[in-house]
């Protein structure tokens, strides 16, 4: 039964290889197989989630080597939640890619798409720091291909920056992993957490330096303050479905912070406990402010959405930095919301870009859209959701986050920055909306192209998640609280992976 837990990782790899072997010329076959397998992956992720809802850990020992020696995959409720969010996003992005014909702009779109999912799901399930590196590389290599899909001057330039920055990140990752291995003698996350508790006083400096280097690496993936500059370029100039799928990429960095730093430097780590939290909180607040300014300063709508995603990542970083389970629970609620709404905005930006002819999505007067009421309403609802206004889910996420921050001694700064950045985003989005839907040329040069209805359905689907999250707020919050509690219970994680008897937990 435990083996079933590994299927969400293995299925996308199998799908990728299968799609590579199928004839590339039969477009319909490629699309049908890719979409079918992604829907199956969604079903599998949901059933994996049900499997761990009761607080179980499913530990898969590859080759049945016992824990610190072999490779382990761990499925717990946090990783299962990430699997479900990823698969949901993947279905919507793939549907849009097929409906808008984006997948035919270059070769091997579906293969790369599935391999990207393989890397993402692997990163969410690995219990080993070196395998986290390997899965990061798998998802990055697939993302390089997807980012450059379709080609073009600006896309190539943004892609070059993205690739070089991530390669530097990979090198730093290896330096940090090597140092930690040299100091702790193991790379299994659970085993490392035990070893950290026994670090000598003289080695503490090296271990914390390596830990902060690792934080920087995850920060590059998650796009935090000094190293976020790749994000606006890469997300702005890639194709819409890829940008939508990449909405989960930044969350991989955040997940890695929760998993690795949260487990290694928990309250049990003695002098090394919580070395990363103040950094996360301060850099998160700074990133949030800069992201909001970016939203205001953006010159095209896709860039504005990229900065909105950056701001949402920063909000999540604040949630992780707050070091309590209520904040983490609020953060997980906000994570589901921000990933899916951010993706919907990227897709909407593409629809608007295509409808405005040569004006594309620049903030200039252009011909009116073919269906301004429908597109405008969807824009307004998404803007309300992403800026965190009631009644949609962004508001509840931020409300819970601010509530969880009440006891923190930086509360004034946190509340001020979160609320101010929300206001800035509202101002910027109001300007965008009024320009796109009201301030249009009275005499159009030529009729606007008709709306691509099947593609637009993907946006509506993602948008519907937001009211659903409000209506189901009570059960969903209970769920995220359960997940946050399980994530906070590091001893149970360590025991599950190391197969220690339960009573060892209470021994001093």
């Amino acid at each position, binding site marked *: 039964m435990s083996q079933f837990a590994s299927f969400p990782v293995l299925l996308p790899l199998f799908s990728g290889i299968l799609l590579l072997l199928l004839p590339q010329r039969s477009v319909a076959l490629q699309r049908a197989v890719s979409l079918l397998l992604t829907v199956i992956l969604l079903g599998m992720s949901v059933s994996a989630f049900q499997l761990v809802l009761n607080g179980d850990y499913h530990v898969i020992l590859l080759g049945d080597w016992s824990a610190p020696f072999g490779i382990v995959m761990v499925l717990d409720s946090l990783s299962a939640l990430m699997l479900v969010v990823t698969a949901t996003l993947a279905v919507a992005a793939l549907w849009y890619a097929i409906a808008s014909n984006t997948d035919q702009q270059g070769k091997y779109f579906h293969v790369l798409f599935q391999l990207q999912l393989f890397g993402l799901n692997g990163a969410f399930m690995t219990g080993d720091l*070196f395998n986290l590196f*390997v899965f990061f*590389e798998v998802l990055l*290599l697939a993302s*390089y291909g997807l980012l*450059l899909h379709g*080609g*073009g*001057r600006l896309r*190539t*330039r943004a*892609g*070059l*920056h993205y*690739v*070089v920055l991530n*390669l*530097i990140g*990979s*090198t730093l990752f*290896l*330096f940090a*992993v*090597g*140092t930690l*291995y*040299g100091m702790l003698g193991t*790379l299994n996350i659970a085993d490392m957490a035990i070893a950290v508790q026994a670090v000598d006083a003289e080695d503490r400096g090296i271990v914390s330096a390596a830990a902060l280097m690792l934080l920087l690496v995850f920060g590059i993936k998650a796009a935090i303050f000094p190293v976020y500059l790749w994000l606006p370029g890469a997300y702005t100039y890639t194709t819409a479905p890829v940008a939508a799928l990449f909405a989960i990429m930044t969350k991989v960095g955040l997940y890695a912070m929760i998993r690795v730093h949260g487990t290694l430097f928990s309250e049990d780590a003695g002098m090394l406990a919580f070395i990363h939290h103040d950094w996360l909180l301060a850099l998160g607040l700074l990133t949030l402010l800069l992201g909001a300014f970016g939203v205001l300063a953006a010159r095209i709508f896709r860039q504005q959405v990229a900065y909105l995603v950056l701001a949402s990542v920063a909000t999540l970083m604040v949630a992780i930095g707050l070091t309590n389970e209520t904040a983490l629970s609020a953060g997980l609620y906000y994570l589901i919301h921000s990933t899916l709404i951010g993706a919907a905005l990227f897709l909407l930006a593409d629809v608007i870009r295509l409808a405005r002819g040569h004006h594309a999505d620049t903030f200039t007067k252009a011909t009116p859209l073919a269906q301004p009421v429908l597109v405008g309403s969807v824009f307004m609802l998404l803007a309300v959701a992403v800026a965190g206004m009631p009644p949609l889910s962004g508001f509840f996420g931020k409300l819970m986050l601010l509530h969880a921050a009440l006891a923190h001694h930086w509360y004034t700064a946190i509340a001020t920055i979160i609320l101010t950045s929300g206001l800035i985003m509202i101002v910027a989005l109001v300007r965008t909306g009024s320009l796109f839907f009201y301030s249009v040329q009275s005499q159009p040069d030529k009729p606007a192209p008709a709306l691509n209805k099947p593609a637009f359905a993907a946006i509506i689907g993602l948008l519907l998640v937001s009211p659903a999250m409000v209506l189901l707020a009570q059960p969903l919050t209970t769920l995220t609280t359960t997940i946050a509690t399980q994530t906070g219970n590091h001893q149970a994680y360590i025991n599950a992976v190391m197969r220690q008897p339960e009573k060892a937990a209470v021994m001093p």
Partner: protein
Amino acid sequence: MEWLIAAMIAVMTSSGVFLVLRARTFPVVLGLTLLAYAVNVFLFAMGRLQIGTPPVIDKSALAYTDPLPQALVLTAIVIAFGMTAFLIVLALKSRSELGNDHVDGVHKSVDEREASRQQADMGEHP
């Protein structure tokens, strides 16, 4: 021997960082390659430096060296190799699409405009 390895890693890393900060894509690729070499040697040294000891079980052996860093380095080398190959292709693609090998891809037409303006300037003020 420790200082030799340490100095080697330091020199490779600093050269790598220097080259990565250059403005043209080819030195950046070389810099990343050097950084990858440095990190590989670094990982190798993380199992502590030992000479003449086997990593796998051997009846005549008195001591063993840590086999894990060797396995890690092997993986890291393969990944770095693939990434470098990809980066070189991407650098060539950007060279042909952007018309020059600057990392920020200063556009060809801008360069040409710049060049023609300089020529015009020189024409006015001989």
